[in-house]
């Protein structure tokens, strides 16, 4: 790192996203903007039933419709693709039925694709899709996880005997003894309803199979082009070097565009069948029934503690409904596993018992979504510890000060199995307390209660597993690479071209990479061009997931930059007959480190290096293109952490909640770009508030989605959002040169925790607790009514 020449665009600088002007002036290229010659459009006829047998399908009228090129069913599509079995090999006992692309004999979720209609235009495909006649015989529906595991409920997939996908327990210390001997035990039950990722741009791809050479190019709104290159090659039997996946501009991913979707695969197969490019863009209504969903957990949690304030044990019992199949590549055990393993992580305690179960139901698949199970762990931990502090008559901040794991205990493994090394709970808490003027807020809260105004203050501490390493995905059996890579090339004019394996869905990843490259080499960011998301041109890499861009891809860029700089200085030394050790690069000029005087410009180095090799000694080896890859070898993850606070007001007559203020103190290690990091935190906070207060896929008992439109599914909007204040503690990751940890999910995890605690804090005068997310007015009123009638 070029520490002596910190430029205004290097590491730590507030650089706006490089693509902003292009995107904001309408010059972006999203899937739906891209047209290929002879391109067709596909739309799918989907199952209207959560569970039904297909009696017959008549596609003849659709085939005759104007503009229709083909109408394909399971018989045409499925044999061309190896089925998916979404099972994690590193989770013994995890099981799933094989998933085929189109439903053939029966459909097991509402929205499962059945027939693909391919036409010259999307409008014609949609018109023809209405002419497909499917006769259905509805079957009994398994609507939720409690019904699914009740005795006598038939298995959705008879070959599995029952509906349990995964059942995992862990125990550390002596939890039974600790609970029995504790002075106090508090138990709570939590419900988290299903929600959507709701990206601004829906899913989509253009599949372009070329029968001329048997190659497949897929332009794909996907977070991980290399994952998809592998999937297309492996499942469609195309040699891997003939598969190219390009991620163009993408309007939001949040994990949802990391999953593998059977409709997307079917669109690719359609291109292979027809030998023409096929575009598939999910429309908004379709996204409600076909995007991977998130959450859907019921959790029982307990905490045991002593009069002294010591926590002696915790317990978690999670039951998650994961849809009708295991999510291929990314599985459906992650939310539950994260929820139970991270619970309690910031706090000192030694006895722990936990269980998570993933249960099949007749609903759409659960997939990756921002935060995965971490917010659930944060909520359970922070609500229980807040209640424990109350029981003891200790202020919640003081309780945290006393019971956080002390720095002196690091590194350590928590009872849930989390490795903590460079976390900063105490520093973050003290900074937050100062930031929010804690005592003043508490005073105001007390005063307003006398006037029947009910405000709550919630503080939530969280751990964020970021940048998963090989120890996680390696043993899972999924061909997912946890490395990332970077190619750099000095251009003859002295600028630098960078190709990263990362992808950018709007978070500004590529800008961060440009900053690292510029900083490391010693040029300004204007001299660096970055391309990402093309599986054919960059080193192999993971892409965007698990908050890994800067931590892994950034480290690869730093290492590539160091290599290129070394090579540039070697060449400059040869040209100027100076030892390379005496040279450095500052602002695009090679300078003499002793005198500080410019020796030669990068433009001249490039010109000579490419066009005037005749002037160089014959044995000089000019390498102005370099490549570096990085993987955090021995680490499961880089653990980031933070503390957030929410100040809310609850209208106890109507059940309406208003978030008045939100504060975050985050430690993501080294901050590459404060502007973009704060953007990640703010965006996550808004999504977190949305999750707790608004977002819910409302299903009937028999698994019919009742609110599948943007009018009925409530996303958080600007009017309801509070001012958000973001501050940082920087504790660099010790195992990398860059020192960055992830930031993508922190905002959401902490905000969900703090809003949960704040709303329940506001309800304390009534003895009421709301524990069913989202906190709709009715659920708040129900909680108050329960308290009034003496129930909890």
């Amino acid at each position, binding site marked *: 790192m070029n520490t002596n020449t910190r430029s205004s665009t290097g590491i730590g600088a507030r650089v706006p996203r490089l693509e902003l002007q292009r995107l904001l002036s309408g010059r972006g290229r999203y899937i739906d903007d891209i047209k290929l010659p002879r391109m067709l459009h596909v739309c799918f006829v989907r199952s209207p039933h959560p569970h039904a047998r297909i009696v017959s399908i008549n596609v003849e009228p659709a085939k005759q419709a104007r503009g229709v090129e083909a109408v394909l069913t399971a018989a045409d599509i499925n044999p061309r693709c190896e089925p998916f079995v979404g099972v994690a090999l590193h989770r013994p006992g995890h099981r799933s039925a094989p998933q085929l692309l189109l439903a053939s004999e029966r459909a097991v979720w509402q929205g499962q694709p059945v027939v693909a209609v391919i036409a010259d*235009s999307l*409008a014609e495909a949609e018109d023809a899709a209405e002419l497909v006649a499917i006769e259905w015989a509805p079957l009994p529906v398994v609507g939720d996880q409690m019904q699914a595991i009740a005795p006598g409920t038939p298995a959705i997939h008879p070959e599995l005997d029952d509906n349990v996908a995964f059942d995992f327990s862990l125990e550390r210390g002596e939890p039974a003894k600790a609970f029995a001997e504790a002075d106090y035990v508090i138990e709570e039950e939590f419900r988290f309803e299903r929600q959507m990722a709701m990206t601004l741009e829906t899913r989509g791809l253009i599949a372009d199979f070329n029968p001329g050479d048997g190659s497949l190019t897929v332009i794909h709104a996907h977070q991980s082009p290399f994952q998809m290159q592998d999937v297309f090659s492996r499942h469609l039997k195309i040699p891997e070097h003939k598969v190219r996946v390009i991620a163009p501009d993408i309007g939001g991913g949040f994990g949802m565009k990391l999953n593998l979707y059977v409709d997307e695969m079917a669109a690719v197969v359609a291109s292979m069948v027809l030998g023409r490019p096929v575009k598939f863009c999910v429309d908004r209504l379709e996204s409600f029934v076909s995007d991977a969903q998130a959450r859907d957990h019921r959790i029982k949690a307990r905490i045991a503690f002593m009069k002294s304030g010591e926590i002696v044990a915790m317990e978690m019992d999670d039951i998650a409904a994961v849809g009708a199949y295991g999510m291929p590549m990314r599985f459906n055990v992650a939310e539950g596993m994260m929820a139970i393993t991270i619970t309690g992580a910031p706090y000192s305690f030694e006895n722990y018992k936990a269980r998570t179960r993933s249960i099949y139901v007749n609903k759409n698949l659960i997939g990756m979504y921002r935060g995965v199970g971490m917010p659930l762990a944060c909520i359970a931990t922070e609500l229980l510890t807040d209640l424990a502090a109350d029981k003891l008559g200790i202020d919640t901040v003081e309780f945290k000060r006393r019971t956080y794991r002390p720095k002196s205990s690091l590194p350590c493994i928590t009872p849930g199995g989390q490795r903590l090394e460079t976390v900063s709970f105490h520093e973050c808490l003290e900074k937050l307390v100062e930031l929010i003027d804690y005592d003043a807020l508490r005073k105001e809260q007390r005063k307003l209660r006398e006037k029947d105004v009910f405000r709550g203050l919630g503080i939530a501490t969280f751990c964020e597993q970021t940048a998963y390493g090989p120890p996680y995905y390696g043993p899972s059996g999924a061909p997912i690479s946890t490395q990332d890579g970077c190619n750099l090339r000095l251009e003859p004019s002295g600028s630098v071209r960078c190709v990263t394996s990362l992808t950018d869905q709007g978070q500004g990843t590529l800008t961060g990479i440009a900053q690292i490259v510029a900083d490391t080499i010693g040029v300004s960011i204007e001299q660096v061009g970055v391309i990402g998301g093309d599986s054919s041109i960059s080193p192999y890499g993971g892409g965007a997931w698990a908050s890994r861009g800067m931590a892994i891809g950034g480290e690869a860029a730093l290492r590539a930059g160091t290599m290129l700089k070394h090579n540039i200085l070697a060449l400059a030394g040869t040209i100027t007959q100076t030892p390379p050790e005496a040279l450095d690069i500052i602002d695009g000029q090679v300078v003499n480190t002793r005198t500080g005087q410019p020796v030669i410009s990068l433009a001249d180095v490039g010109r000579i290096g490419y066009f005037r090799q005749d002037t160089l000694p014959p044995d000089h080896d000019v390498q102005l293109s370099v490549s570096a890859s990085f993987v955090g070898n021995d680490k499961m993850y880089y653990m980031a952490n933070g503390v957030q606070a929410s100040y809310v007001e609850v209208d106890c007559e*109507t059940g309406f909640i208003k978030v008045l203020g939100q504060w975050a103190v985050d430690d993501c290690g080294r901050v590459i770009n404060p502007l973009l990091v704060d953007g990640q935190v703010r965006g996550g906070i808004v999504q977190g508030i949305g999750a707790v207060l608004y977002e819910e896929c409302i299903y009937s008992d028999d698994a019919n989605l009742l609110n599948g439109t943007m*009018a*009925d599914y409530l996303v958080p909007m600007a009017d309801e959002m509070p001012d958000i204040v973001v501050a940082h503690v920087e504790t660099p990751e010790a195992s990398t040169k860059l020192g960055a940890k992830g930031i993508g999910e922190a905002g959401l995890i902490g905000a969900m925790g703090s809003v949960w605690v704040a709303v329940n804090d506001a309800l304390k005068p009534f003895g009421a607790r709301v524990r069913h997310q989202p906190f709709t*007015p009715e659920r708040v009123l129900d909680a108050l009514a329960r308290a009034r009638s003496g129930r909890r």
Partner: protein
Amino acid sequence: MLFDSTLSLKHNVQIMKARNFRYIRPDSLQHAYRILEENGGDAVPIAGGQSLLAGLNMRLSAPKLLVDIGGLKELAGQSQRDGTIRLGALTRHGELLQSDLVRKQLPLLAQAAAHIGHVAIRNRGTLGGSLAYADPAAELPACSVALRATLVLGSAAGEREVKAEDFFKGLFETDLRPGELIVAVKFPAPQANTTAGFAELARRRGDFALVGLAAMVSARRDRIEGARLVYFGCVDRAKVAASVSVAVSGLAMPVLDTAAFEREIRQDLTPDDTPGLRAETKLHMATVLTRRVLNSLVMQAAS
């Protein structure tokens, strides 16, 4: 102007989510009446399109012909004569917020308009469109009933007048006959001692209300003399809550206790359970809202 949306497909100019339809923009009201009469049930008038277009794109309905009445001068304008305020059917929600006439004479409409959607929706959505669509959770049908408005309905056969109270027949159902358009809405100027009160509970700003109340209340000193309370988002249409209106008359303000009208709310309003909201909760919310609206009138009077 006649435009065939199917043409655009052939030239691949435009991709529509809706089923194919023809579009025509008549140049006079009589022309519009003629087209509607000739095409019968196949034709649907479109003004602001804020509900209709969403429905078409979701393929919930598939009219063969859209008759765009948005440019008809005969349906625009605001006037006041002989104690009656007449608002053209094409009056946009945004105009209700800005019009001096409305703010002075019909402040209820201005109060309500602020709650309708967002700016872009208010710039396009029309008074006539909202009434014709008859969404039970919409603001303007309730206000028109509360204000004792009369709707002027026109067709090739001539014009007729219907009281707002009689116009709304049920869920998205009105007294409009085939070929008929709302031409204008006539409001009697409210009496001097009546005050307008309006409130709604919506999850997010601009959303349809879970429960809403449009009220016209007359009071003398600190006592309610008479009230006309119209709830929306509660039952299948905007409806005067007759028993509640009687029950609150005579109450001293501020109203601290809701016991005086809780029973009547249950009597007048019989909401259904909806996803995420039970009827019982709606009734509770209506009760809270009633007290708050009545008390807000005291505040208004004081200021």
